[in-house]
């Protein structure tokens, strides 16, 4: 798999068609252009063109104060807004030399895992519509509703949460939250298990997903793909386990892996990870210490010492990192986002070569890419 293989080099022969999937197509979560050179139903060459919703976020961030950047990090990808807040706050905290309070760390873990739950639910839902299984999508959205309500109860908003702060979080848990969360999560656990059983036993679903779009561990490593696609290929790579941040050290969870690296394995990893996330949240709710949820003095005007940091966390889709250089002023000197979706997006075209047109939907959706984050 080389980079050249992902570009269409010659015009189509008389037996071939150049099919433009996009920039607007029902398959896509956001605008991108996927050019396919097809012969009959078989894809001969594929090329991905991105940049349709480039927002210039990294440059914008260099012109904002540290606190002003915080709500903008939500908008990198709305399904991972909590993770983005968190990774940014960890960077600034490292620059400032402060630590979040103990309770705040647990609260951040809870919101991060809830964020992972709702992202995986929507990801699997979109995938199942793309193989023509609309019912499962609606079940997933129904389940997601409960998770989003749990997030809303903590953060006050349903999509762009803006919850983490430097040295803490925005607010504490509302009263009676634990009972509410345990009830919703218990129900969710049952539903996820039943959906997993359904998807693992449906013969049409298995025919559509088994052995399709195999991304091996080596290829994933070369392309920088992390998260569920890499774990589906059998690599036990999870930053929560490898570089424990927040309080993941104290929590018990399994790193889910599958061996095949195909579409089925990627979806299976997400399904099983949801069960682990539920387990993590239950532990957090039990173990959470009382105490302040933020630092006594919140530094509103932040002037960190000059230096550079690269915090990274396990996003729902993979490895999210932000490289921040400070020159001692109230704005970052340089800001660079290393998003997980960019890597998964560039892995897509080589996987498509040699497959059928119908597999484009299955493979693209199983990577669970996010155009907003790819373009930033």
């Amino acid at each position, binding site marked *: 798999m080389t980079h050249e293989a992902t570009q269409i080099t010659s015009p189509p022969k008389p037996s071939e068609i150049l099919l433009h999937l996009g920039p607007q197509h029902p398959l896509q979560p956001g605008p991108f252009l996927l050019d396919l050179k097809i012969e009959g139903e078989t894809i001969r060459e594929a090329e991905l063109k991105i940049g349709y919703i480039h927002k210039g976020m990294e440059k914008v961030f260099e012109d904002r104060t540290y606190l002003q950047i915080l709500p903008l990090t939500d908008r990198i990808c709305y399904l991972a807004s909590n993770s983005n807040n968190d990774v940014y706050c960890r960077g600034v905290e490292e620059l400032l030399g402060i630590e979040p309070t103990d309770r705040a760390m647990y609260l951040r873990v809870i919101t991060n895992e809830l964020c992972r739950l709702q992202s995986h639910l929507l990801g699997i839902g979109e995938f199942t519509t793309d*193989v023509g299984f609309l*019912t499962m999508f609606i079940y997933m959205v129904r389940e997601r509703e409960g998770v989003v309500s749990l997030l809303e109860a903590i953060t006050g908003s349903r999509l762009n949460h803006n919850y983490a702060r430097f040295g803490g979080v925005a607010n504490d848990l509302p009263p009676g939250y634990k009972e509410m969360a345990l009830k919703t999560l218990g129900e969710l656990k049952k539903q996820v298990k039943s959906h997993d059983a359904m998807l693992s036993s449906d013969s049409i679903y298995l025919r*559509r997903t088994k052995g399709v779009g195999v991304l091996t561990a080596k290829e994933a490593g070369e392309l920088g793909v992390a998260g569920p696609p890499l774990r589906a290929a059998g690599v036990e790579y999870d930053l929560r386990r490898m570089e424990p941040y927040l309080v993941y050290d104290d929590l018990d969870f399994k790193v889910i892996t599958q061996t095949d690296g195909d579409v089925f394995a990627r979806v299976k990893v997400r399904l099983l990870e949801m069960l682990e996330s539920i387990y993590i949240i239950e532990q957090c709710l039990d173990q959470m210490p009382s105490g302040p949820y933020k630092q006594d003095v919140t530094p509103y005007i932040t002037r960190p010492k000059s230096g550079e940091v690269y915090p990274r966390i396990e996003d729902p889709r993979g490895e999210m990192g932000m490289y921040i250089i400070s020159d001692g002023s109230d704005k970052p000197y340089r800001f660079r986002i290393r998003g997980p979706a960019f890597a998964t997006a560039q892995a897509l075209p080589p996987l498509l070569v040699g497959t059928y*047109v119908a597999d484009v939907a299955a493979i693209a959706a199983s990577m669970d890419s996010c155009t907003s984050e790819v373009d930033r």
Partner: protein
Amino acid sequence: MGIVEIYEIIMDTLVFIFATNPFSPWIRGVLGGLVIGAVFGGALVMVYLERKFLGDMQSRIGPNRVGGRFGVLQLIADAIKLFTKEDIIPAKADKWLFIGAPIVALTSGFLMVAVIPFDLLIIKGNEYAVAVSRMDISILYIEAVSGLAIFATFMAGWGSSSKYAVLAAFRNVAKMIGYEIPMGISILSVAVMAYSLDIVEIVEAQSSIWFIIAQPLGFVIFFIALLADVGRIPFDQTEAEEELVAGWATEYSGMRWGLAFFAEYLHAVVGSFIVTLIFLGGWNGLPFVGNLYIPGIFWVIAKTIIVMMLFIWIRAALPRYRIDQVIDIGWKVLIPLALLNLVWSTIIGLMWA
């Protein structure tokens, strides 16, 4: 006066008209209009059921605003919307093919309706089928006319000069060629057992035992082939939204799209009627009702609605096959099984006779 009496009066009147002059073109015309209206209504019922029943299965509400709590007028609102939308014909389209495609699709559906019998009335020893036209080879005629629908798909796919549409048309042709054969063979098996190609006689042959019990394999093959023929999940590759946008109807808008959409439902309804008539005993009632008089037309319609519900249930429960898998199933599984079923039905049919 109960419903049964009203029905009897209507039927008596019809019988009188039939008995006096069964071949009058006026009577045929009126009856044809009624039947076409009924099947048209049936397609509307199917669209409504699809939305409401599917909504229930997917734990959502479905239409619930227009026409009260159950959204019964939603279809009319949709029709008004479709009629008032702009009618766009792409600049590069082959205009006549583009315009003709939905008309051909609907025509093929309505031509099938012509031979569908709803009941068999026996007056003074003479048999009168409640159908627009009674043919000796009506099941063969239906099979032939339903094949016309493929021209509509291909006209639309070729005429709209869109890559998605043409891919969908290719898929549809490949699928139809693969599935018309097992469908035809299972119809033959039924004909062998009934000793006739006339639907009325096929139904009459089921008065003792329904063909779904006499040849269950044939029913399964016919039903799967029918699903593929009318293009419903898991065989809706021709309009797979995530792959080909709206398939062969991608470039259509407004009422032209409405007609194409409606033609599909019409085919599904007629398909349900055929399943009812040739496998589920048609107007032969269930044994447990005893001597209670239930009009045959009631049985036909009730069974048809059950078959439609089965279509919708399958749509809710299954994902979509890939097109190469569909073709594989058609040629490698269904055709050998259909031949096996033909042998079975020949042996059983001979023993029965």
